[in-house]
């Protein structure tokens, strides 16, 4: 433990020295995210899937679509649930067992960004009102860690949803039954893009890698939709932001997000 934190402390000094010269450890500009590679349909047995590489962070998301009971107060809407899990093979410090608070936060923030953008039109996922609806489950697993899991999981889930095909069900004898040949795309309203920014000293960097993640003072994850609106935000880390910085991060998230949205759009076009 101690040896790790000493190394982190040395890295932070180096990262800060570089930032003062306008540079980052991996040579990126401050507002530049790492290369994003998306392999759609990596798990053919899932209804939709994607393997995503954000720099050296690697996440696989599989989407399963199946009939489910609606929540009692939303019988006219289908379900959408997104999770995230850190696999023990992703980093030497990850242990098996119940998820720790950071992983719970990761899963909830990933879910919230996609949910609040209304990416999936859940009103079209009803088989019979109040009785049976379609449930869409996007499960992320982190297989390799190099910082910024928030964005990697969000891109993986979004890409997986964009290439998902849902069967069609109809009620036969009170039971949802698959209609042969009824496969279609999920009803998509918008493409949400999450952009995470870290504050290190007085500098704000987009898409922090593992070393930057370990050195940051605080972070903010902002999700924008296709119309350039902001639809979800989460601040984290043990320091604060000024109001100006928060406004600046909002603008950055729209600018950086637009580029990534183009990549996700091509996933959508390829799957149609």
């Amino acid at each position, binding site marked *: *433990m*101690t040896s790790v934190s000493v190394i982190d402390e040395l890295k932070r000094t180096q990262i800060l020295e570089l930032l003062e010269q306008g540079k980052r450890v991996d040579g990126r500009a401050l507002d530049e995210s790492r290369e994003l590679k998306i392999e759609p349909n990596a798990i053919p047995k899932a209804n939709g899937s994607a393997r995503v590489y954000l720099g050296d962070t690697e996440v696989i998301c599989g989407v399963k679509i199946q009939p489910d009971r609606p*929540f009692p*107060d939303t019988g006219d809407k289908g379900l959408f649930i997104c999770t995230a899990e850190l696999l023990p093979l992703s980093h030497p410090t990850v242990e098996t067992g119940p998820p720790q*608070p*950071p992983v*719970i*936060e990761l*899963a*909830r923030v990933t879910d*919230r960004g996609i*949910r*609040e*953008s*209304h990416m999936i039109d859940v009103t079209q996922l009803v088989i019979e009102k109040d009785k049976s609806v379609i449930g869409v489950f996007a499960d992320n697993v982190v297989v390799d860690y190099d910082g910024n899991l928030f964005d990697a999981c969000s891109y993986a889930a979004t890409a997986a949803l964009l290439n998902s095909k849902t069967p069609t069900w109809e009620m036969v004898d009170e039971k949802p039954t698959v209609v042969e040949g009824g496969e279609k795309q999920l009803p998509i309203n918008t493409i949400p893009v999450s952009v995470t920014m870290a504050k290190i000293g007085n500098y704000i960097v987009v898409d922090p890698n593992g070393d930057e993640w370990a050195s940051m003072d*605080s972070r*903010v994850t*902002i999700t924008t*939709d296709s119309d*350039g*609106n*902001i*639809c*979800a*935000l*989460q*601040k*984290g*880390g*043990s*320091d*604060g*932001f*000024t*109001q100006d910085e*928060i*406004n600046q991060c*909002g*603008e950055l998230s*729209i600018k950086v997000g637009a580029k990534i949205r183009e990549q996700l759009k091509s996933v959508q076009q390829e799957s149609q």
Partner: protein
Amino acid sequence: MGGRDATMVLLDENGIRCDGRKVDEPRRIMIKAGGLKNADGSAYIEFGDNKILVGVFGPRDVHPKHMSNTDTGILRVRYHMEPFSVGERKNPAPSRREIEISKVIKEALEPAVMLEKFPRTAVDVFIEILQADGGTRCAALTAASVALADAGIPMRDMVAAIAAGKVADTVILDVNNEEDQAGQADMPIGYMPSLKKITLLQLDGVLTPEEYKKCVDVGVKGCELVYELQKKALNDKYFGNRGD
């Protein structure tokens, strides 16, 4: 997820909200510093219909020991809802939501508390939601700051918190339960007014870039109001003429 009344008017033609407030008007806020005998510091807050009790212990020994840090003290926060605090009985086991909120509040308080003065120790903040009515995390964070100050723990500033939001395409201050359920956006903000730093910020709901900036601005101004009440609570206890 509570019962949602589709016919409820969130904002009427006179700009009055469902509970009779104006767009920039917070709910009634009452903060009391102290109150618990055994805790090193405590606070009680009523924020509209929210009723929240916070107790602080420490700096004290860390158990389990491996959690301690030789460079600094650690802050531990537990946000917990009583089973009777909401409409339908809540399972008393910590939910994922409570675990996330505990983490978010901890990270909102950390910039305020001078933990580096107490290496190898822990400061424990226990937040108990006795009754919930929308905006518990902000009310809890506000009360936790007062409880930490009441415990005499050195602080750089207090964190004041309130939510901004959007209903009927209008930016509002202090989102209540109905507005959270049926409104368009909810943005809880925690802010240190003397240091001018935002330490808690979340958002769910769709905002244009202009509305986003306005929400942050409305929230920060709301926090400045809450801050005055926090200071008043401490003043009342330590410099007032009340009998406790």
